[in-house]
């Protein structure tokens, strides 16, 4: 069972994410995008979207710092465990709550605003619900568990496991004694990765950084357009 959840399942999820995204990009580029509903409802979206997106970007940075940066690095920098957990508690708590409030607003808006609800696909709903659960478990771990039960040193278990996973040396043994809620949080997060190619989440990969480099006015001729289509 451990092998399934901590070796097979994460790889399957990542493969589905990558292969699924490539497939969709190549075969249905017309469907690729952010599926914005701002035209239909603006006032709730403003708070929901801004809190969620900026929140989750900060949360991602937090996860990189907690999971991808090894414990030895913090030790070498002279950052004590207590100080680390204290900071993670405060910063993670703030950004986590930002994200949670955002996703809650977005979910509420999607369910209660009739214009948005009627024009939502099943995947739009599922993605928000899934994100809501993932963010809720994450916030619970950061804000509640951290202060009630005490900090859990994931930097010596989950962190090494994830880094192993990314360099194709997964060590399932590291995950065996991780508290259950952490496990659920991780499994659901990988579920988000796995379903992402079939939802609006693909817009993450379209962050338009090339915009900074291009000339403002674009010209295309019909030949160019045609060959672009063929080579795609």
């Amino acid at each position: 069972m451990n092998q399934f959840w901590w070796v097979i399942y994460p790889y399957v999820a990542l493969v589905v994410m990558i292969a699924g995204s490539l497939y969709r990009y190549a075969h249905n580029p017309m469907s690729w995008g952010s599926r914005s509903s701002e035209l239909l409802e603006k006032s709730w979206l403003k708070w929901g979207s801004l809190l969620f997106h900026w929140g989750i970007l900060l949360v991602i940075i937090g996860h990189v710092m907690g999971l991808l940066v090894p414990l030895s690095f913090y030790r070498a920098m002279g950052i004590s465990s207590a100080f680390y957990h204290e900071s993670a508690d405060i910063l993670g708590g703030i950004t986590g709550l930002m994200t949670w409030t955002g996703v809650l607003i977005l979910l509420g808006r999607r369910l209660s605003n009739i214009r948005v609800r009627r024009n939502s696909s099943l995947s739009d709903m599922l993605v928000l619900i899934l994100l809501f659960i993932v963010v809720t478990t994450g916030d619970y771990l950061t804000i509640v568990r951290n202060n009630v039960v005490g900090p859990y040193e994931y930097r010596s278990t989950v962190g090494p496991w994830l880094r192993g996973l990314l360099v194709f040396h997964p060590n399932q043994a590291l995950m065996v004694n991780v508290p259950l809620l952490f496990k659920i949080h991780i499994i659901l997060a990988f579920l988000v990765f796995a379903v992402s190619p079939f939802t609006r989440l693909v817009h993450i990969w379209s962050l338009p950084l090339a915009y900074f480099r291009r000339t403002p006015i674009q010209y295309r001729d019909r030949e160019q357009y045609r060959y672009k289509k063929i080579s795609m």
Partner: protein
Amino acid sequence: MRIKAQIAMVMNLDKCIGCHTCSVTCKNTWTNRPGTEYVWFNNVETRPGPGYPQEWENQERYRGGWSLVKGKLTLRSGGPGAKLAHIFYNPDLPSIDDYYEPWTYDYQALVDSPRRKHQPVARAHSLVTGEVMEKPIWGPNWDDDLAGGPEIAPRDPNLPALFQQVAFEYEQAFMMYLPRICNHCLNPACVAACPSGAMYKREEDGIVLVDQDACRGWRFCVSACPYKKVYFNWNTHKAEKCNFCYPRIEAGLPTVCSETCVGRIRYLGPILYDADKVKDAASVSGLTDVYEAQLDIFLNPGDPDIIQEARKQGIPESWIEGAKKSPVYKMAIEWKIALPLHPEYRTLPMVWYVPPLSPMMNHLANEYAMDADSYLTAVDSMRIPVEYLASILAAGDTAPVRRSLLRLTALRVAKREKNVGYGSEPLASSRLFQEAGLTLDQLEEMARLLAVAKHQERFVVPTGNRNPDENLEYQQGACGLEELAPPEGLKKPQPARSVKR
């Protein structure tokens, strides 16, 4: 000099009767699909009025178009950095209520109703939610023909505050129609605002299009277009816009709106321009100078040097011929009777408008006894204030609008002179003629183009240039399947990408 050709349009507002045929035929052709019910690539607004979407000219609110920041041409809503910062929520985006919530009627209820005492009613159903709409509060052309009068019309962003009380007294009220499509600008703000690079201007004919495969639905084009002529399809979640009926244009046919216009107010024709000058023209410091700067970009198709250079740069012969006969070139550049819509947005629009003469006949009590010069006072006291027209067509500068109106009036007097004779002095020796500044021959040519021009004269549309494929042998008999099943023994042709224009 980098010569490009653009297919452009002129609308003669003097002849628009506000029948909406252009809008309806356009809608039936392009936007009768889910997600685009609220979208009108072509719409006709009654002015003064808030327009569609409401108050689209209010750039304080929507922040569309370009502005100069320390002398540098910048999108009013900010460059790439600002766009990325607002990518999660675009504060400038209109909501669907700024257009209107589209609806249809429950017609089946009329058919299915059992016999009863009262007539059955077809209720309005929202096309966005499907719910019954008890009371639609805004719709397409809600303020048609000044409906709503003094309550709605003053929301026109072109009306200065003090103007309002006077203008809507019944006796002084004025009205005009403004048909609008995408202006296929030389300096399109929508194209510059697209983070994905999905929008582009076609090399061949200047038509501005959205690549639906590349559009990611970031929506900055919608807010960046100062004319609000890029729309968001809430069903496909992609941007859509007037495509100048490019499949028709490529085949040498006029756009649907032009073809079906019952007043024959629309003209189409190619214009040659120097693409190297576009940025400088859009960057001139004074708002009222943009119009003149735009005129300077265009190239005279009668100049042999220009023609030689155009040939050298690969402009097809049919387009050069078209440019020579172009009615748009004559009206916009030669006679300067057609003006661009809101040149102060610095987009260099390519749909031009001949300002309306505020029904002359009603205005002039005893025209049969009038001298040519008496028309001068008529021009300066038109029912539609020249300041109002100038605010729409000339960045507030009344001079180009007055010139255009004088020329149209001189045309009228010239034709009257021919048909019913003149009073004390002929037009040619009058001040009106002098101020109008056109020759009698030009007025005669103008009269033909504005009043009697036939289909071919109004629409000069060269067919799209199809560059032959390098290797026709390869495609022969392949039925478009050459990618899957290449003909044996033939080498796949390499795309001609290196051709620089």
